[in-house]
């Protein structure tokens, strides 16, 4: 009868070991759409799907798995691989260990500095924060208020003008206090602000941080890669933190940032409170990316 005929036709189609061009195209289109909705950069989505298409055409479908699930598995594995495989650590490899936080205006650097400071303090380290943002009104106040009562040192200069000098004095103060981990909070900036990008390079050269964290807003769209590249050129990025993952955004912009800096994503921000910090897990990030 007709129902049985259709059912077996579909079964044949799904379990066919020979790649069906149309089915593959439909699945790939669906994946492209999911990735674009997740803010993965358009050119990455294109090159990624070309790569996947090529691989699925040359591969026989394993038994007992639909074409769609097969492709999804390839995509999932490939994305997890691009993100470094498993969770990575931010190792405090020497003392004092100096971390510099950089990123575009409003991405959550100051809040993330406080979160990270708390994270290390909870792990038993002696922690200090140096605020070298001389532009944002009440930037020092903000860091102090966030870190109040947590036994974390905060250094900043109320009417400071020169971020490099403040950084140097701050680091000196921190070493006097025998601090193990120092986190330097910098002013927000973007790639079109030549003067500020130059300043970032000066800060990098003067501080010589052990680790530079690029703080990326998960809601960012197609600009993530270009902006990350500009930061990477003036202060080599060691790792990435994806903030505001507690929004409707899936943070696909981070893939472009990873792509241009070669840096792993180590942390995500999941809210405005000090505790809203999690270690980045590539597998759950990719599942969320693929919707």
């Amino acid at each position, binding site marked *: 009868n007709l129902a049985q005929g259709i059912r077996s036709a579909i079964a044949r189609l799904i379990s066919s070991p020979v790649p069906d061009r149309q089915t593959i195209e439909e699945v790939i289109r669906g994946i492209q759409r999911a990735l674009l909705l997740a803010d993965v950069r358009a050119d990455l989505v294109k090159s990624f799907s070309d790569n996947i298409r090529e691989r699925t055409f040359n591969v026989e479908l394993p038994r007992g798995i639909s074409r769609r699930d097969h492709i999804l598995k390839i995509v999932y594995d490939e994305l997890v691989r691009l993100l470094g495989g498993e969770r990575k650590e931010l190792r405090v490899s020497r003392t004092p260990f100096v971390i510099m936080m950089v990123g575009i205006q409003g991405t959550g650097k100051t809040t993330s500095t406080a979160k990270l400071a708390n994270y290390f303090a909870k792990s038993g380290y002696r922690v200090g924060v140096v605020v070298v943002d001389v532009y944002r009104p009440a930037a020092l106040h903000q860091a102090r208020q966030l870190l109040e009562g947590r036994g974390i040192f905060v250094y900043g200069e109320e009417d400071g003008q020169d971020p490099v000098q403040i950084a140097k004095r701050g680091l000196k103060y921190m070493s006097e206090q025998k601090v193990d981990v120092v986190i330097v909070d910098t002013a927000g900036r973007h790639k079109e602000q030549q003067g500020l990008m130059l300043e970032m390079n000066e800060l990098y050269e003067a501080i010589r941080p052990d680790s530079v964290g690029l703080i990326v807003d998960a809601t960012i*769209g197609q600009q993530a890669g270009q902006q990350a590249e500009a930061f990477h050129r003036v202060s080599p990025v060691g790792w990435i933190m994806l903030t505001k993952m507690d929004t409707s955004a899936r943070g696909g912009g981070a893939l472009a940032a990873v792509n241009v800096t070669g840096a792993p994503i180590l942390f995500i921000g999941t809210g405005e409170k000090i505790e809203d910090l999690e270690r980045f897990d590539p597998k759950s990030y990719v599942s969320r990316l693929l919707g």
Partner: protein
Amino acid sequence: RQLSDEEIDEVIEEFKWQLVSNDVALLAAEGLASEIKEKLSMVKVPLFGNRGEVLKPIFREALSSVLLETDEEQFISKVRAAGHDTEPFKLLFVGPNGGGKTTTVVKVAKRLKREGIPSLIACSDTFRAAAIEQLKRLAETIGVRTVSQKYGSDPAAVAIDAVNSARSNRIPLVLIDTAGRTEVDTNLLEEMRKIKRVVSPDTVIFVGDVLTGNAMVEQATKFNEYVGVDYAILTKLDADVRGGATVSLCFAVKRPILFLGVGQGLDDIVSFKKSEFIHRLLS
């Protein structure tokens, strides 16, 4: 000759990719693409050579009908006229975390002050660290007074406090800065709805970040759902952005863009001219 079905799909795909790579949210790009599908099926392209001449105007028209400008003069006159009542004109600013609300509130206050309209600013972000200090310091630089209470106090109460103070001091305008919030935090969305209910502002302005990708659709939709957005201001246009988020926002909530933030200085605010945007989005 007319375009074949295959060609139409091809043109639509091209249009979508062009928009998406210029930061337009996928849902907005898809929506616009389906809107031009009909036009594409009726258009005549040259038998040989460049069909771009015929297609470009269709793309431009699609963007022109979705993007909404505001007549700045008209807006300012409306605020100035309201200032002659005994009741202060109230502008409520809302938006996602770090989008530029606080800086924008002071930019708008400065812009209106230049037009001869004095104002009072309510520090209704009673949550975020140093939010009150940040706003006070910014407002100080342009000689505009602020009204605040302590951290943890009711944002609506601070706003009412400011309105009362404006009324008794005959200040015609109150701008209310609120805390950043996400489109998925129902508690904070409810808090925002309550602020609106208690204060009943004359105008609600959504301040968003133009660097935002697909989240812009959900952000604008949810904020509009909870408090009704009258105007939007998008910030950080100076970060070399194609400005696709303007399309995403207008597509999602069909509300006009009042201003654009083009820098961190208090003079860095301009009006939105859609023609230059359309040119950039299609180039």
